[in-house]
């Protein structure tokens, strides 16, 4: 599959943006769930979808997914800072809960797994509306053990729903390594359920994008769900200030050499699509943009008593 230079550039941009978020937000908040090493999976999965498509991202990727869908950077930053100007008005953390007005299904009560059911419902809505929209449900290797994951995939096949299930397999769930949490192959569950299930190199953004394109096209055609397991690695800690004394440092060092951004840079340079200088300039510009958005959000007002619940507990019928 040949890609336009435009698409390749956008993919790199999303990867660079994801790394910049890590730098800026990680520095600010020790509890930021870092993404180092998983940028190719993030970019390949979330790039280039329709406004009506719905994402239920893993929390490690929520912000990038929201931005890929068109959410405003500064407003999302305000959500990480608990500012009044955020989409949630300071009521929830935008790093784990994306704005629904952009088709994001966030982690509302923080439990992993149920959002896959919500994504399945979004796919059902798209099918009932027959509008060609799709849903993308993303889960980690950890969440792949949830009953919700099995139930959602089973139900999506039974109902022939337009959904793509993506396992962002970073091989560790907080401290539980893949072998301690997951039996067998995640991708092979596709065959058991009667849907395409493939494993791709999650550090190769083009491989991820190719797999997504096929699965998305299949869903839009009405041919049903697919499962893609993106094998990547959490170079980052579970959270930014994680001491990580439970980890194999040699393994981390090995995977750091398989850095998805470095790999994609080499690809773009070798194909003469972008030069090293172009890429450096893009990285610098993105980092500046994220830093400025963060600083701007930092000076936004914090909520006060009058912001606690001005509309009460319930949604009221539109006037």
């Amino acid at each position, binding site marked *: 599959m040949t890609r336009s230079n435009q698409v390749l550039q956008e993919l790199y941009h999303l990867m660079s943006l994801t790394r910049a978020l890590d730098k800026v937000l990680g520095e600010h908040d020790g509890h930021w769930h870092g993404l180092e090493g998983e940028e190719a999976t993030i970019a390949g999965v979330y790039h280039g979808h329709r406004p009506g498509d719905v994402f239920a991202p893993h929390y490690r990727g929520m912000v990038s997914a929201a931005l890929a869908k068109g959410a405003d950077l500064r407003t999302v930053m305000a959500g990480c800072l608990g500012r009044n100007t955020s989409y949630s008005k300071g009521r929830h953390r935008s790093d784990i809960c994306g*704005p*629904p007005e952009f088709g994001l299904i966030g982690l509302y009560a923080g*439990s992993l797994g149920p959002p896959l*059911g919500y994504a399945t419902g979004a796919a059902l809505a798209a099918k009932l509306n027959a509008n060609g929209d799709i849903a993308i449900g993303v889960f980690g290797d950890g969440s792949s053990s949830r009953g919700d994951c099995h139930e959602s995939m089973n139900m999506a096949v*039974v109902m022939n729903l337009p959904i793509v299930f993506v396992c962002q397999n970073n091989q560790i769930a907080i401290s539980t390594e893949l072998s301690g949490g997951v039996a067998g192959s995640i991708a092979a569950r596709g065959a058991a359920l009667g849907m395409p299930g493939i494993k791709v190199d999650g550090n190769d953004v083009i491989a991820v994008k190719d797999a997504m394109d096929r699965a998305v096209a299949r869903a839009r055609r009405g041919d049903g769900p697919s499962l893609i397991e993106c094998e990547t690695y959490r170079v980052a800690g579970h959270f930014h200030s994680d001491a990580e004394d439970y980890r194999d440092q040699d393994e981390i060092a090995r995977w750091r050499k398989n850095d998805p951004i470095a790999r994609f840079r080499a690809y773009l340079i070798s194909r003469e699509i972008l030069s090293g200088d172009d890429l450096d300039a893009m990285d610098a510009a993105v980092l500046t943009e994220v830093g400025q958005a963060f600083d701007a959000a930092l000076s936004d007002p914090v909520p006060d008593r009058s912001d606690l619940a001005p509309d009460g507990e319930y949604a009221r019928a539109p006037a």
Partner: protein
Amino acid sequence: MSRMTFQQATVAAIADEMRADRDVFVMGEDIGRFGGPLRSNAGLWEEFGDQGRVLDTPISESTFVGAGVGAAMCGKRPVVDLMFLEFLALVMQQFLDAGAMHYYSGGTQRVPLVVRAKFGIGPFHGHAYDHHSWLMNMPGVKIVAPSNPADAYGLMRASIRDDNPVLFLEHMALYHAGKAEVDRSVSVPLGKAVVANAGSDVTVVSSALMTRRALAAAKTLAAEGISAEVVDLRTISPLDEDAILSSVRKTGRLVVVSEAVKRGASMNDVVALVAEQGFGDLKGPVRRLAPPNIPTPSARELERIYLPDEARICDEVRASLAV
């Protein structure tokens, strides 16, 4: 006007909403050709099945209720049949999330979802548990429990039109227990209790089957010269605080009747409300009539001892007046 059972009225309300709004659809286990347990969806398959709006699901309660949440997030108005309230434990996370979405989204996300559940003692000696009180502690969720066919019709229509997640309780002892007049043009709002029997000596607050029993008790008590006012909550959450307080203001006495076990029962919120805001109106202690803190027993004899009945409601009212 036509005469309907509780079950017929509930299904008629769903069918009327499905005719009025293409976004309404139903989903659950065995609700298609089978018609749903206790005929909970009877006739919907025949009318709406070929439109793809009557969806049988795998036995995956968490996920089909979750799919209801997701579809509602996208603007559909799903009516999901959980079958029995005993399965509420399987969908607690979904209710917690769905109830939080409107607030957490800054007010943009609406979740117009109805989850139906049959509960209570009934002809089958099974699935009787009344666990709805678990949801009292969940912001953003509504709980509806009609006591008669007319309210079942009106409250179901209101629940489908509501933009919040609603647990709609269908009592199995009321389900096929006789027909009553249902006027399809009457709307019944959520959040409004009704004085099911006006009285002046004591306020009895109840819902669903307990309202039926409280009304029978009121009749017996009237013969003794005791005037009991029965307030049927209809919506258990949010409580109609004004209706409760104004009745207690009038009578000065309160008896609450619960089918859920006493500890943690939703009815305790009625008591707390009156203690907080109506204490000065009370002429004596509040009395709570509820099952003991054990699971619903199966044998008819034990069930009879376990659950508040007409005679015990009468006793509680008399005791309330004796102080």
